[in-house]
């Protein structure tokens, strides 16, 4: 019996010159195919081991990122990756990418649809609770506020670059969606509210201020002057300090005797709400945003409307603003609301002197509107202790954090021949490998060699 080599040799040697050349070429082709198969096997192995990714940019999109992160971390180990975001990555994805950066992978990203957005929530110093929400976003963007139960409110950003809102009963976290970016924030503190102290003469403004604040949930101490010898007291008014009072409300000059104590209280962090007639006493004027007041402009007797209630109230305009005073509200040329910082505390002064008419003679919602307005004045200056809360994971400024962790966005790099996705390449390699094997096998079989 002849060996396989002898058969191969006899198959070639038994032919004519042209046929022999063709046969030799065919054998050479078969060797070439075997070499190709071997090369493809080596390539596939290299790709599987991640050697093929070295130097090339691996790419992923928001949809494929989670899968790509696993591959990049376990088998691929690319030098460079690029992620094209069409919405902000999750906290896990963001931190994972940052970890890749820490491990030496150059991570680039792009996301033209990601708008710069930041969300902050602060508890309101108000027994009714609630939080003040501030969202920074580009002008013209639509901001949608929502919590775990669904949308709460929406607003379009005006030219100043942000929106503010009051959420009465917030859940643990709050989201602000601006286009493809969702910022999430949680309350970090709860407030320890103290009592309020109201000082004034017996009159409707004093009575209704106390009533409105009590109805709002504040615990109120009051000293109401009825005659030079008689003061009606509610609660025991002792030391005026931040351990006892969140804010002091002074309606008129009857509190002048307390001016020095109130000044110390405010400078140590307390809040003061002044009605402008109080500045008739020089010692109280020294604390106020406005050192003087104009003559009272009486209301015209028409009932305050629900839409613009304060327009129908009497005012004693605030004058003589100190340099650091901030005007919060005007009626025409008259200042009706102003504020200032004084030491560690804050002072707000109102020029509205008969706000009780708002509550009594206003529209259907007037009592609630009056309570909310007055509580807003108080909460804008009130001192409150803070108690830390357990905070769930948040992402209050997704784009800023992304830039902080990964650097600024960069356009995707395009390299000739680079950036082939191994996962996409392997099936083609397998196909080519199988094709070469079949060709080599068919060539051998058709010339009678096993």
């Amino acid at each position, binding site marked *: 019996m002849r060996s396989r080599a002898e058969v191969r040799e006899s198959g070639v040697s038994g032919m004519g010159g042209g046929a022999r050349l063709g046969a030799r070429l065919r054998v050479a082709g078969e060797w070439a195919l075997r070499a190709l198969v071997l090369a493809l096997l080596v390539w596939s192995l290299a790709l599987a081991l991640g050697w093929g990714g070295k130097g090339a940019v691996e790419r992923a999109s928001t949809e494929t990122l989670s899968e790509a992160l696993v591959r990049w971390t376990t088998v691929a180990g690319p030098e460079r990756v690029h992620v094209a975001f069409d919405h902000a990555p999750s906290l896990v994805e963001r931190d994972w990418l940052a970890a890749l950066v820490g491990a030496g992978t150059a991570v680039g990203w792009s996301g033209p649809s990601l708008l710069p957005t930041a969300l902050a929530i602060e508890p309101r110093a108000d027994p009714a609770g609630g939080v003040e929400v501030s969202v920074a976003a580009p002008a013209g963007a639509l901001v949608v506020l929502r919590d775990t139960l669904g949308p709460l409110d929406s607003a379009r950003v005006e030219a100043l670059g942000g929106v503010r809102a009051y959420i009465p009963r917030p859940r643990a976290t709050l989201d602000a969606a601006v286009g493809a970016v969702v910022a999430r924030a949680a309350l970090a503190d709860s407030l320890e509210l103290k009592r309020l102290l109201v000082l004034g*003469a017996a*009159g409707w403004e004093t*009575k209704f201020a106390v009533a409105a604040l009590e109805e709002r949930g504040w615990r109120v101490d009051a000293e109401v002057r*009825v*005659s030079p010898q*008689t003061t009606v007291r509610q609660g025991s008014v002792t030391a005026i300090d931040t351990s006892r009072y969140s804010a002091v409300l002074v309606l008129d000059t009857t509190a002048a005797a307390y001016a020095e104590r109130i000044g110390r209280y405010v400078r140590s962090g307390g809040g003061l709400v002044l009605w402008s007639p109080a500045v008739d006493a020089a010692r109280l004027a020294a604390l106020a945003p406005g050192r003087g007041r104009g003559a009272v402009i009486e209301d015209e007797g028409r009932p305050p409307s629900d839409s613009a209630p304060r327009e129908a109230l009497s005012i004693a305009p605030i004058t003589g603003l100190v340099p650091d005073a901030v005007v919060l509200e005007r009626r025409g040329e008259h200042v009706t609301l102003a504020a200032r910082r004084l030491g560690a505390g804050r002072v707000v002064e109102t020029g509205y002197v008969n706000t009780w008419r708002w509550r009594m003679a206003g529209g259907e919602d007037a009592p609630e509107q009056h309570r909310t307005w007055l509580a807003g004045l108080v909460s804008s200056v009130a001192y409150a202790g803070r108690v830390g809360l357990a905070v769930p994971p948040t992402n209050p400024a997704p784009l800023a954090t992304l830039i902080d962790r990964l650097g600024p966005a960069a356009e995707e790099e395009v390299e000739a021949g680079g950036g082939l996705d191994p996962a996409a390449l392997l099936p083609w390699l397998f196909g080519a490998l199988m094709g070469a094997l079949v060709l080599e096998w068919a060539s051998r079989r058709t010339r009678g060699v096993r």
Partner: protein
Amino acid sequence: MSKFVFATAEYASGDWESAPALPANLIDSVARYTSIEVAPAGVSVRLDSEELFNYPFVWLTGHLPVRFTDAERRNLKRYVERGGFMVVDDHNHDITGVFHQTATEEIERLFGKLEQVPNDHEIYRCFFTFENGPPHTNHELNGWGDDLLHPHLYAIFVGPSTGDRRRDRIGLLYSNKDYSSEWNFHPETKRTMQQDPTKFGVNLIVYALTR
């Protein structure tokens, strides 16, 4: 800041103007004993008008049956709920009389049962002190009307009621004492009186202005 204006309620039924000298006497007492800024003359205000809400203190009295109109009932309810203070005084001093029967019926129809004001309530101590509750009137002591000494006033209490705190602010005060007769004297007469009978009226006004 606005001055205190004494207002008398005009209502469609009955004789609302039956104590015309009372406002002047109470205004005089408020000005005399306190530093409250008070308008020198009182006003009368229709119970069914929006003007009512410019006067958070209103005095209502009469001898005749009281039947409020729908508009008066709506206004009265809104007035008390918003913080207004109304004194309703039975000018007959007679719990079997028509004013008492009809006025209490109207009030309780709007607000529920009138509650007795405890005699240690703030209203008896906020300016002058009345250790035994509401001071008796000469009409009671002389046996007129129902020939009874009424030891208590009654009220509709309003205000916040949270936790263990009950609604404790008086929104409507009801009296069978007939202060409308007691304080309805010619103002000059006060000079000859050994004791000023209107002192409790000062307490009512001080209470209304401070609570």
